[in-house]
């Protein structure tokens, strides 16, 4: 058993860290709650430069523009991006759409879609959730009706993050309304500027802006269908396992914690018995979260499919992030209510931002859905 990285992985981590340290400057940093258009485009440009080094898709096979390494290296990259406060850009292309095309796509689709992702040139958003299909995702209603060489899409998608910058939407739509719900769904990649697509902005409490996306008789070529018709649910679930480790999410929180500990020292809380015990207790949770994330990445690197394990890491992370936010807010008192725009806010308002971000307890499934997955798939409890 060994928890450490190989010498090579360690070196990769150092190189990425060094690169990001040099490239990042404070005005472009975002931890929580300080998103901006400028920072977004700075990150996009940074991603292109990561791509030039073949780091952006370091875990993809080389033939598709990847670095030919494993999920561990991809997770190291994710971790470093989060830790260095790089504002998020969409990861749907790198982590979901790309891997789905690699696994299920035709040679033409691979040639068309993969190189732009690997170069950092294409932004993807995801169209899974609908107004009436959240936890019960497989009940989604958006229709994709076959019409000769085309499909016609009608319906709407919720919580479309990165919609404003996305070139493509990676979506699930119902192709057979008469089949059992899981067996009538197909997977598509659709260009966002296709006529008939419109959006209604949906600002989030963390400062990001997502959208509800409407599809009104959107005609797309059959070549947009990924994998087999009516197998989309299974294709999508298979590729969801590609990005389940969640190191970026962890590292962003960890950076906030590390910064907050330094703040507490400077603020004279070094000797405060209550505050320092709270921080020590938070650290226990964060270290456990990290270990669970790396376990998932390690399993993926061995070709195993983490299923309950991914939900375990996700659920624990959600809980520990929330716990940290609550404890930090309690330590800060009213200072914790100052937003990032306020120059009196401790550590650039990251704790206040975190406390909003920690209400995001539903990503990749609500906590209850993750518990169901753990109980039913991990523990074998009956449905």
């Amino acid at each position, binding site marked *: *058993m*060994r*928890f*450490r*990285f*190989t010498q090579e*992985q360690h070196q990769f981590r150092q190189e990425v860290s060094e690169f990001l340290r040099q490239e990042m400057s404070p005005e472009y940093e975002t931890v929580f709650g300080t998103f901006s258009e400028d920072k977004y485009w700075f990150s996009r440009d940074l991603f292109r430069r990561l791509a030039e080094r073949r780091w952006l898709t370091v875990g993809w096979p080389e033939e598709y523009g990847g670095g030919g390494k494993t999920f*561990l290296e991809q997770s190291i990259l994710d971790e470093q991006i989060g830790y260095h406060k790089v504002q998020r850009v969409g990861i749907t292309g790198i982590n979901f759409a790309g891997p789905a095309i690699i696994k299920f796509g035709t040679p033409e689709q691979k040639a068309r879609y993969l190189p732009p992702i690997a170069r950092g040139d294409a932004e993807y958003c995801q169209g899974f959730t609908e107004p009436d299909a959240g936890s019960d995702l497989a009940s989604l209603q958006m229709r994709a009706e076959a019409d000769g060489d085309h499909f016609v899409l009608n319906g709407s998608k919720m919580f479309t993050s990165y919609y404003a910058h996305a070139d493509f939407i990676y979506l699930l739509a119902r192709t057979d309304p008469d089949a059992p719900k899981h067996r009538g769904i197909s997977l598509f990649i659709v260009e966002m500027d296709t006529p008939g697509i419109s959006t209604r902005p949906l600002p989030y409490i963390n400062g990001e802006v997502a959208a509800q996306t409407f599809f009104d008789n959107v005609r797309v070529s059959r070549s947009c269908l990924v994998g087999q018709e009516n197998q989309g649910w299974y294709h999508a679930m298979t590729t969801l396992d590609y990005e389940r480790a969640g190191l970026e999410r962890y590292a962003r929180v960890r950076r906030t914690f590390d910064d907050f*500990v330094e703040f*507490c*020292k400077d603020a004279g*809380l*070094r000797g405060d018995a209550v*505050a*320092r*015990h709270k*921080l*020590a*207790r938070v*650290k*226990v949770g964060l*270290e*456990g*979260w990290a*270990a*669970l994330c*790396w*376990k998932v990445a*390690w399993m993926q*690197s061995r070709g195993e499919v983490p299923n*309950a*394990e991914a939900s*375990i890491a996700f*659920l*624990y992370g959600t809980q520990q992030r929330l716990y940290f936010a609550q404890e930090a807010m309690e330590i800060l008192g009213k200072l914790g209510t100052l937003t990032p725009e306020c120059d009196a806010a401790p550590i650039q308002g990251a704790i206040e931002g975190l406390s909003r971000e920690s209400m995001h307890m539903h990503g990749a499934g609500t906590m*209850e859905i*993750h*518990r*169901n997955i*753990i*109980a*039913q798939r*991990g*523990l*074998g*409890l*009956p*449905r």
Partner: protein
Amino acid sequence: MDLSLNESQEMLRRTAREFLEANCPTTLVRELEDSAEGYSPELWQQMAELGWLGLSLPVEHSGIGGDAVDQLVLSSEMGRALLPSPYLTSSIACGRLLELSGSPSQKSDMLPLLAQGRLIMSLALDEEAGGCSTKVTKGDDRNSLNGVKSFVPFAISSDILICVAGGPEDGGISLLLLSPNADGVSIEPLASIAGYPQARVEFNDIEVTHEMILGEDMDGGLNLEPALEWATLVQCGEMVGRGRKILEMVIDYAKTRVQFGRPIGTFQAIQHQLADLRVAVDAAELLAYRAACSMSEGRDCSEEIALAKAAADEMSRMSTVVGHGVYAGISYTVEHDMQLYSARNRLAEAEGGGTFRQLENIRRAMGL
């Protein structure tokens, strides 16, 4: 990164599980709770023959020379089986103290006997008021030991006690080897949930001779902290093994217990409690193995051990609540095994200074 056990560790786990399932059923655990010795000398001898008593003791002193990961594998199985034995105090805490502080002749005299199960040692460390008021004081013609130690595990079953005492120099810590039958030593049993005999041991004006001192001179105390950390890590292994066993037991029960016409395991209210416990056990286990890896690679792991123990404590408390909560009424009876697990959980949570001490160690490592 490789989070799997190697072949010999897998084999150790299988062997230990099979052996303990066959030889340490809960009927035996209950029997030993009521016995004076608190352990089975026969089982102890078999453990010696299996190489367990010297698993992590050095090869040159008849040990197996296994690393911390090997030890966690074995200790998880011991925790799982609720194995009543002086293993943790004798082989682990005293074994490591002896290895780190003992003079060459003390090591070659005693370590092989420990590994062979012919010598049982117990660490007299804790005191009821906390701290260490037990002291070696300098007299005109002799040094003498006075004080009262408590929570001494298996004191009456052991051959040698290692008493942790302050002095004789200011700030010094001495480690003294004594027979529990020596003149001036009196032992009084403590009623506790331990499931094995714990005692209050009084040392009354005992002359400290040169042979009693562990180590070349009076600096044995320098190695106390690493030995205690080692015992804490091994304790985490036992806790994780016990937590996983509770989880398995409760899953089985939830699948078969029928109420409202269906197994209670179909209810989300039950499923979610078990899911939360699984998460806590996984996290505690990973942190324990991470610390063990650091230790076997020779890196500083003090903080990692504190993190592991704090996580294990929390998991342990949760496993008690989930276990009794899901089993409900039946687990409130003495005849049900759940109470055997929860009693040991509660003692283990208090070991190593409890969660409070771990948080102190963690915050200190963080520079707070």
